[in-house]
């Protein structure tokens, strides 16, 4: 069954691509089918038991799933299906539909393949397929391809090649590419290999997970891809890095003494990533960029959780991974909807869409609240577990760092909502319509889930628990979580259900009190009717203060923002290119010089022949 799914994906991708030459509707249907059919096949027929073996090029490949990858497959295929529905509407009337659909399906296929891989080579193959198909999506718009696209691919390639190096090194030690063999033999490896292999693997995964010094590709790539895809890019594709990290951190590093330091370093890198991502997110004026940086920050939290690696922290990390997929997926979809309806995603241009696109707003609001980690949304449960795990495992400074980042996140959360939906309703956007149903419904479904998980996290903690048991953690149910109760290891708890009911009760009471029309002659006035020193604002007057919104805060944190890792990378790249440019001057173009090179070569060889041979 395992390979059939992949084949269906691949065939679907090709069929969809070529169907575009015949009929657009047919293409849409084929596209949906080639996402949904394998997805439903996956959940219906793939179980941990069935393993598909294949020998290709003398290498033993093996496909199968485990509880951990099932969890991630849930993210990938769930979010993928939602985004697929969305895409059909999103892509209506756009060019390069075949290209988009093809790469979309291919990415999902690659991610499913990664999760199914039981050996490192097929892992790598699918990893690279994922990389280049996502690269092709990144450059879909044809905008900034030589900068953003290349940067993304170069970083991906660095990561992938680090991973490849680790894979071949593992093979030279083990004689096998199987992940199981790696896990089994890792504790017996020489110490330098015990350090080298995790470093290389983590570099590979860290790039996709946008961990701190390797994150510079993410803002551009996330914001450049079409939004329907970015929701997967940020929501699911980055989780592949997390998935890899989970395997490395837990399966390998738990068993060796150096593991502790690795975990600490990774956790701290995650923390710093979170801070940097948040600060830069606050600064952005483009919603896509903002969400991209926000994704970096959120991935930082997840990495912190996984880095700490206690059962609670791991649970927190995985839970956050799921929730992040939900809310960030929704948010990117929302931005896509807004961009489609208004033609821009810049806060400087669009304002006051709340009455035009109410459902998009509701989805965004729920997701933003979830992102900010405020109860009663799913994000809160993840954040809570993360903090508790940091506290209970004595990471007192890290918890401050995380808290700083997540508090500062409110700034950009607010900026996102305010920038698009609130503020003055300008005449320019008076005719904006709500996005088509097919775009709104996926957003609402996703945000409903992030709401549901806030009160009943047990729904998703159950598979997480199964996954963690697969990794060797004990059973966490009933002493770390119940369906709607979460505990920490000190025995403190949050009982979510009564909290939700109280919140709903209070909310409804006051909402009715405030909304009810006949009471107190409550009435609506336009946003032009504001008290601005008795003036009647003119239509062309800009009363929208979403530009340079957080200036005071940015002034306060200015010393941190002055240094950008990106600049160093750019400097390095430019320096290297200049060096290469200089080096190629050795080909002078003069045949005689070349002849002299030959003679010099011979002379040098003759001189050093004793050393060389």
């Amino acid at each position, binding site marked *: 069954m395992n390979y059939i799914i992949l084949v269906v994906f691949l065939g679907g991708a090709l069929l969809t691509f070529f169907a575009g030459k015949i009929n657009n509707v047919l293409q849409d249907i084929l596209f949906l089918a080639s996402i949904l059919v394998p997805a439903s096949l996956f959940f219906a027929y793939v179980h941990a038991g069935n393993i598909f073996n294949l020998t290709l090029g003398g290498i033993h490949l093996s496909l199968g799933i485990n509880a951990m990858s099932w969890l991630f497959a849930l993210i990938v295929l769930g979010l993928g299906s939602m985004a697929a529905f969305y895409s059909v509407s999103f892509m209506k009337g756009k060019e390069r539909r075949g290209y988009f659909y093809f790469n979309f399906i291919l990415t999902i296929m690659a991610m499913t393949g990664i999760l199914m891989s039981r050996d490192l080579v097929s892992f790598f193959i699918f990893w690279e397929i994922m990389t280049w198909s996502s690269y092709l999506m990144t450059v879909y718009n044809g905008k900034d391809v030589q900068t953003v696209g290349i940067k993304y691919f170069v970083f991906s390639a660095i990561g992938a090649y680090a991973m490849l190096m680790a894979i071949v090194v593992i093979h030279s030690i083990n004689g096998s590419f199987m992940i199981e063999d790696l896990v089994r033999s890792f504790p017996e490896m020489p110490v330098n290999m015990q350090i080298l292999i995790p470093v290389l693997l983590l570099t590979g995964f860290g790039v996709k997970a946008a961990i701190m010094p390797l994150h510079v590709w993410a803002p551009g790539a996330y914001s450049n891809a079409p939004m329907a895809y970015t929701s997967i890019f940020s929501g699911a594709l980055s989780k592949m890095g997390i998935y890899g990290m989970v395997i490395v951190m837990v399966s390998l590093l738990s068993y060796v003494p150096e593991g502790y330091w690795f975990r600490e370093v990774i956790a701290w890198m995650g923390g710093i990533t979170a801070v940097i991502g948040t600060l830069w997110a606050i600064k952005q004026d483009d919603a896509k960029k903002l969400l991209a940086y926000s994704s970096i920050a959120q991935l930082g939290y997840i990495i912190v959780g996984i880095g700490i690696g206690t059962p609670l922290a791991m649970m927190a990390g995985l839970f956050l991974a799921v929730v992040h997929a939900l809310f960030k997926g929704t948010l990117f979809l929302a931005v896509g909807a807004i961009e489609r309806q208004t033609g821009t995603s810049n806060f400087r241009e669009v304002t006051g869409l709340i009455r035009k696109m109410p459902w998009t707003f509701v989805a965004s609001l729920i997701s933003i609240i979830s992102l900010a980690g405020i109860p009663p949304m799913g994000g809160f449960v993840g954040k809570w577990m993360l903090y508790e795990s940091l506290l209970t495992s004595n990471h007192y400074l890290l918890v401050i760092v995380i808290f700083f980042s997540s508090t500062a996140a409110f700034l950009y959360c607010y900026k996102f909502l305010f920038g698009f939906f609130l503020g003055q309703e300008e005449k320019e956007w008076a005719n904006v319509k709500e996005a088509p149903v097919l775009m709104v419904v996926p957003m609402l479904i996703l945000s409903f889930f992030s709401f549901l998980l806030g009160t009943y996290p047990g729904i998703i903690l159950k598979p997480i628990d199964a996954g963690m048991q697969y990794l060797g953690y004990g059973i966490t149910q009933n002493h770390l979580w119940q369906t709607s109760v979460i505990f920490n290891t000190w025995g403190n708890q949050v009982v979510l259900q009564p909290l939700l009911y109280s919140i709903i009760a209070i909310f409804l009471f006051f909402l009715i009190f405030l909304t009810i029309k006949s009471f107190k002659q409550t009435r609506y*006035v*336009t946003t032009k009717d504001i*008290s601005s*020193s*008795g*003036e*009647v604002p003119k239509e062309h007057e800009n009363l929208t203060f979403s530009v340079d919104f957080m200036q005071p805060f940015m002034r306060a944190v200015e010393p941190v923002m002055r240094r950008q890792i990106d600049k160093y990378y750019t400097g390095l790249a430019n320096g290297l290119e200049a060096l290469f440019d200089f080096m190629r001057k050795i080909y002078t173009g003069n045949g005689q010089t070349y002849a002299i090179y030959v003679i010099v070569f011979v002379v040098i060889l003759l001189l050093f022949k004793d050393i060389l041979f």
Partner: protein
Amino acid sequence: MINDKNSQKIVDFISNWARKHSIWVLGYGTGCGAIEIPPTMTSRYDAERLGIRGAATPRQADVLLITGYLTTKTLKRVIRVYEQMQDPKYVVGFGSCTINGGMYYDSYNTINVLDKYLPVDVYINGCMPRPEAVLSGFGKLQQLIGEGKANGATKYKENLEWYRANQKKVIPNWVMPEYNW
């Protein structure tokens, strides 16, 4: 029970009492009379002991305090501010200029009688009125509110056309949102 006349009376009494003792003033301090507001509010006369305090925006204010003359230019703003205030709302004309134009009675660009444009509840006489006079004026207003007689807003609503006509006479190019309170 709620719509009972007697209970309505009680509610009215309580709300009037509250309104009377909590007067949030939006001072429209363009005229020279505004200089008398600081002494009224600060330690010597301390209007806050009577529950009178400044309000930041018209939405929160109960009383619009017009301190002195209004030019034709500022009248427009004043009308705007007044219309933005929430019921119940009161207007206090401060100084002679609001009553009859005062020393600017023959100026080409001030209005003489504020009452033609906005429903004034209480005038405070003087050029300028001293803080004592101001406090006494507010006392009068409180008394009116307590009795439920300070119904300038109702008057304005009822005679809106007349007020509008007057306002439009002074303000040539009228661009304002409709007042449909």
